[in-house]
């Protein structure tokens, strides 16, 4: 589309009618100072193409000239598709829209009002604004072709711009047939899918969705029908089971009833036998008791008679024995009295024995005291001797001054240190040994013995030491100097002197520094200490715990004891008693006394025992006699009671025989009953009860099964009325039919989706192939304006420049990194590249409103050349307040808007 002219009136600054145009098909520069209405003119043109004539509201009111109630009107003449059009729109007051097409030399209306709005909008692929005035979002392709005042950027792409561009490019890629086919394909695709590729839902959902929903419901019905059929079969089996259970239970109950009847008979017979056994056992017991009683009585009578006879005989024997036992007791008593007298005589001889023993004891004490006195005296003498020896040794020990063990150890150590220092010193000294062949004289000029002069016989060795050198003057030979490394001689010498000094200090108290003498002193002191210790030990042994005074007092006591004994036995002072004789005499007297007393005591005890035994026997015989007499009375009384019925023994024996026979008969009857009972292993009554319980249980099970059977039959009958299988058949068929339709629909939907996606994919590849040339064209344009430093322009998915690819940079650089002027050059290059693509079939109008204001003169000049070339395919309308900047463009059509407004037209 290219613009022919614009005519406005009642539009903001254009209160009066102003027409701009006719415009050239190449470059047009509309210029004027700020506020002359360049942008307003542009706005009026845009509204003519894109806004509905009925638009209202505050924003629309803004179209009127300030302070005037004029009706904004715009008429735009343009060419598109080889035809000439004119659109006139009147806004706000009696709004109208009219599209006319030139036929010959006049315009003929082809659309009015809304139709006109829509048709005009389609020339730009624009979108109708929802409400209010349009803005750049609704400009369609013009978003690329037209720029807002001072803003070349493409950064705010909204709406369907990118899609529109893609569609335009795609249409070119696919060609006219492809475009029409794509439209149809999209219609088909949109029947199934949303723009984002999801299957549509809701009211506009495709048939496949409805079928899926219907199938889901049908599946549920099918599931329910299957469950009912399963339930039917399950209930049928259950009913079959119940019938089997019931039949089985009935059979079991019948069999158990027969068993119960049989068991009942056996239990009755068993009970009768038990009663009979009890009765016969009682009979056995009673006959047995009767026989036993008769036998016992007869035995008792016989026993009483036998006991009476025996007791009478016993009583006579005891009566004869009693006088004999009385006499024997008297004799034994007399003998005991005699033995008692003998014993007392023997005990009276104890006084003599005691006297002999006392004399022997005194003699023993006397002898012991004498011995103790002698020993004590000897001990006291020893103590006195030890005291004297001890005093002498202690005196000698005080005279010996000797080092103790510790001092001696220190002395030994000091001596060792001295010897070691001496050895080290000797080793450190330079040693010179001379063995002259003949006698010679040696003077020591330097060395340990400096100044020494000695003569040595030939063949003998002479040694000299010194440090740091030894210098010898050998007579007749010369001077000999021996030197060595200076070293530690002085240190060792000092050590030797220190050791010597210490040794002197340690030995000074003992008067000698000789180690042997000191050790001899030490040994002597130790020897004396040992002797003193020995005597002390001996003294302690003699005294024990006593003091010497105590020992003397004890000796005096012993002497007093001896004097006391001698006072009683005066002869013992001169002739000590024969202790052995006296002791033997006392022992003999004692032994004799004891023997005589023991004999007397034995005799007395024997007599006493004899008397007691005789008296006891006498008492026993008397007692037994009395008991026998009493026993005879008791037996007689018992016999009288037993025979009170006056029956004879013979009669009693006959009665016993009869009773025994009756007992035997009763036992035989009882055993017969027992034999019959033994045929029963257990009580048939228990089995009867068990069988009765089993029968009752079986009957109960049968009743329950019957009840359940009836219940189940009812349930099954109810379920049968629902005809589950028929429901299942219908449900399966419904599902099958729906599945088949669903499969068909799904296949078609998938096929349409696949077709769309394949087509879109192919087209996207083709469009991508188109985008690359656009990038390339934009890059070339930018290089011409700004040089190569930006590298390539990278277009994003929406054909908007999103980065630069400088050759020096490894990655894309954001557009924002460029300067303001560079950015407008980048966007200009991009817009022109896109515009050329869009103008491949027809020239297109490009509007630059106050563009390139930030570009420097050099780049602006180069941009002008680019625009000149672009004008081969594009109509370019430049709105500017700096017309001088565009004066370099050849063939440009300059329009002075200010002059137009004042009525003059300047071209």
């Amino acid at each position, binding site marked *: 589309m290219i613009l022919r002219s614009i005519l406005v009136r009642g539009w903001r600054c254009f209160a009066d009618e102003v027409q701009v145009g006719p415009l050239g098909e190449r470059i047009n520069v509309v210029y004027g100072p700020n506020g002359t209405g360049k942008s307003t003119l542009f706005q009026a043109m845009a509204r003519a193409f894109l806004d509905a004539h009925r638009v209202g509201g505050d924003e629309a009111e803004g179209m009127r000239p300030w302070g005037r109630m004029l009706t904004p009107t715009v008429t735009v003449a343009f060419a598109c598709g080889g035809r000439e059009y004119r659109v006139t729109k009147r806004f706000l007051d009696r709004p109208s829209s009219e599209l006319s097409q030139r036929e010959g030399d006049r315009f003929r209306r082809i659309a009015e009002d809304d139709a006109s709005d829509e048709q005009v909008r389609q020339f730009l692929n624009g979108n109708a604004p929802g409400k209010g005035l349009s803005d750049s979002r609704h400009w369609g392709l013009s978003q690329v072709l037209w720029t807002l005042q001072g803003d070349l950027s493409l950064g705010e792409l909204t709406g369907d711009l990118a899609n529109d561009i893609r569609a335009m490019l*795609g249409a070119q*890629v*696919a*060609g006219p*047939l*492809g475009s*029409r*086919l794509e439209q*149809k*394909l999209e219609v*088909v695709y949109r029947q199934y899918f949303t723009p984002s590729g999801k299957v549509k839902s809701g009211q506009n959902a495709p048939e496949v969705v409805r079928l899926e929903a219907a199938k889901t419901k049908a599946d549920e019905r099918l599931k329910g029908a299957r469950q*009912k*059929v399963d339930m*039917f*079969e399950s*209930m*049928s*089996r259950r*009913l*079959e089971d119940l*019938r089997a259970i019931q039949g089985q239970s009935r059979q079991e109950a019948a069999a158990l009833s027969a068993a119960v009847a049989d068991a009942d008979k056996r239990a009755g017979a068993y009970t009768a036998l038990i009663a009979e056994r009890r009765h016969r056992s009682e009979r056995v017991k009673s006959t047995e008791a009767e026989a036993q009683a008769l036998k016992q009585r007869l035995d008792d009578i016989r026993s009483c008679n036998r006991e009476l006879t025996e007791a009478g005989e016993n009583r006579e024997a005891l009566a004869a024995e009693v006088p004999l036992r009385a006499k024997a007791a008297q004799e034994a008593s007399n003998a005991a009295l005699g033995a008692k007298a003998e014993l007392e005589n023997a005990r009276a001889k104890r006084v003599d024995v005691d006297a002999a023993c006392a004399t022997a004891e005194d003699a023993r004490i006397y002898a012991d005291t004498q011995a103790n006195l002698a020993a004590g005296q000897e001990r006291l003498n020893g103590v006195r001797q030890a005291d004297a020896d001890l005093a002498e040794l202690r005196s000698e020990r005080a005279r010996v001054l000797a080092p103790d063990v510790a001092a001696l150890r220190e002395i030994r150590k000091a001596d060792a240190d001295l010897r070691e220092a001496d050895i080290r010193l000797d080793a450190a000294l330079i040693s010179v040994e001379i063995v002259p062949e003949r006698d010679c004289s040696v003077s020591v000029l330097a060395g340990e013995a400096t100044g020494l002069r000695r003569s040595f016989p030939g063949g003998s060795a002479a040694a000299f030491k010194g440090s740091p050198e030894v210098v010898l003057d050998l007579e007749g030979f010369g001077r000999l100097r021996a030197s060595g490394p200076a070293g530690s001689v002085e240190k060792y010498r000092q050590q030797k002197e220190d050791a010597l000094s210490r040794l002197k200090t340690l030995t000074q108290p003992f008067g000698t520094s000789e180690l042997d003498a000191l050790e001899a002193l030490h040994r002597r002191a130790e020897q004396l200490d040992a002797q003193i210790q020995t005597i002390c030990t001996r003294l302690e042994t003699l005294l024990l715990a006593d003091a010497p005074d105590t020992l003397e007092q004890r000796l005096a006591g012993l002497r007093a004891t001896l004097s006391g004994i001698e006072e009683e036995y005066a002869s013992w002072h001169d002739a000590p008693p024969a202790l052995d004789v006296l002791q033997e005499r006392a022992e003999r007297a004692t032994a004799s006394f004891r023997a005589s007393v023991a004999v007397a005591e034995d005799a007395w005890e024997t007599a006493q025992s004899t008397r007691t035994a005789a008296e006891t026997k006498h008492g026993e015989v008397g007692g037994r006699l009395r008991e026998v007499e009493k026993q005879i009375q008791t037996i007689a009384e018992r016999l009288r009671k037993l025979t009170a019925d006056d029956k004879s023994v013979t009669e009693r024996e006959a009665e016993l025989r009869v009773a025994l026979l009756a007992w035997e008969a009763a036992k035989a009857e009882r055993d017969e009953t027992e034999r019959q009972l033994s045929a029963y292993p257990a009580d048939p009554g228990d089995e009867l009860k068990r069988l009765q319980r089993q029968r009752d249980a079986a009957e109960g099970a049968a009743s329950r099964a019957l009840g359940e059977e009836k219940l*189940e*039959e009812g349930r*099954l*009958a109810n*379920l*049968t*009325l629902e*005809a*589950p*299988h*028929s429901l*299942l*058949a*219908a449900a*399966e*068929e*419904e*599902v*099958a*039919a729906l599945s*088949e339709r669903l499969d068909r629909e799904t*296949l*078609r939907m*998938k*096929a*349409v*989706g*696949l*077709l769309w*996606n*394949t*087509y879109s994919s*192919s*087209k996207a*590849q*083709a469009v991508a192939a188109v985008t690359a040339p656009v990038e390339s064209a934009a890059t070339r344009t930018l290089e011409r304006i700004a040089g190569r430093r930006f590298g390539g322009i990278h277009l994003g998915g929406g054909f908007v420049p999103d980065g630069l690819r400088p050759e020096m940079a490894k990655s894309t650089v954001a557009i924002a990194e460029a300067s303001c002027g560079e950015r407008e050059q980048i966007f200009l290059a991009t817009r022109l590249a896109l515009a050329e693509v869009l103008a491949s079939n027809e020239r297109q109008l490009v509007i630059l409103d106050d563009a390139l204001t930030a570009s420097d003169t050099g780049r602006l000049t180069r941009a002008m050349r680019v625009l000149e070339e672009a004008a081969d395919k594009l109509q370019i309308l430049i709105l500017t307040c700096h017309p001088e900047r565009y004066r370099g463009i050849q063939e440009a059509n300059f329009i002075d808007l200010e002059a137009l407004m004042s009525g003059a037209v300047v071209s």
Partner: protein
Amino acid sequence: MKFVHSADWQIGMKAAHVGDAGRRVREERLKAAARVVEQARALAAEFIVLAGDTFEHNAIDRVLVQSIADILTGFHNPVFIIPGNHDPLVPGSVWEHPAWKSSPQIYVLREPAPVSLDGVEILPCPIYESRSRRDPSSWIPPERRDCVRIGLAHGTVEGILADEVEYPIPRDAATRHALDYLALGHWHSETRFPDADGAPRMAYSGTHETSKFGERNSGNALLVEIPRPGAAPILTLFPTGGLRWETLTPELSAPGELTQLRASIEALPNAGATLLEVRLGGLLFASEHAELARIDELIAARFLFGRVESALRPAPGDTQWVENLPDGVLRDTALQLMQYADPSFAGQRPEAAGPAEASQALIELYKLATEVRG
């Protein structure tokens, strides 16, 4: 002696394989039952034997039970029925329906015990459960008597290939049990089993109404004539089915064959009682896409039931229409879809881009391209 042997009526049968036509299929089975009775009457049959599976299931609508009882009552002569494995004699079965007691000439044979009737001894083998490996005829005593002995059993004769053999019946069961004829049910195709002398003493009558596509020798009943005890039975097949089950499996290889197919489908008689299954194989030429749609429409409009299963794939050499597309996106799209439509295509396929989807997509593209070209 003359009687009609039928079996496997399977009244109330599910027919999910024919979708919405299932109801009609079920109705036709009732009508076919009426035709059996009608023919038996016309042929002066002395009785009818139904060798099991009279009903599809014991849980069918009881109205159907009553309907069958009514149809059989219309025969006026004895009808001997044994329960089969589809309608076994179990609690809640169709055989508990009171209709059976109200028709004195209908004998539901519930016990494996002989039933004598005017010189005939019926030896039934009723079925009590759906599945069993037991020979139902084993109870029949091999006693030759001075009467015609007719066995009535339901099961699989030995030698018939089946995944699971239910109720096996010896191949020589009739001879073994001294039967003049053993009427069999269970298999839907009419099959005869001659004895050593070539006399057809055992036979499946087949179902009286075909029940699915590909079911051969069905939709008939047998008229059995036995002149005297021991004589060879004379079997006469007579049709009873009302529906036609047609299956067409053309393998297309050249343009025009689809049109021929359409013509042959159009020529099929009695389309309203015909169930048609068309399994298309081979190649589809772009020029015949419309023919394919026409066949679809024809079948849907005219036949009781129709199904077209297409395994067609675009004819490899049929690329003229693609070459007629503008060079670029459209042609690329068509070529890409043709690759996907080839089952042997080994390249990477997008999601839902199988041969079937791709073939259909090509058809859609062809239609659109045709529309656009006008």
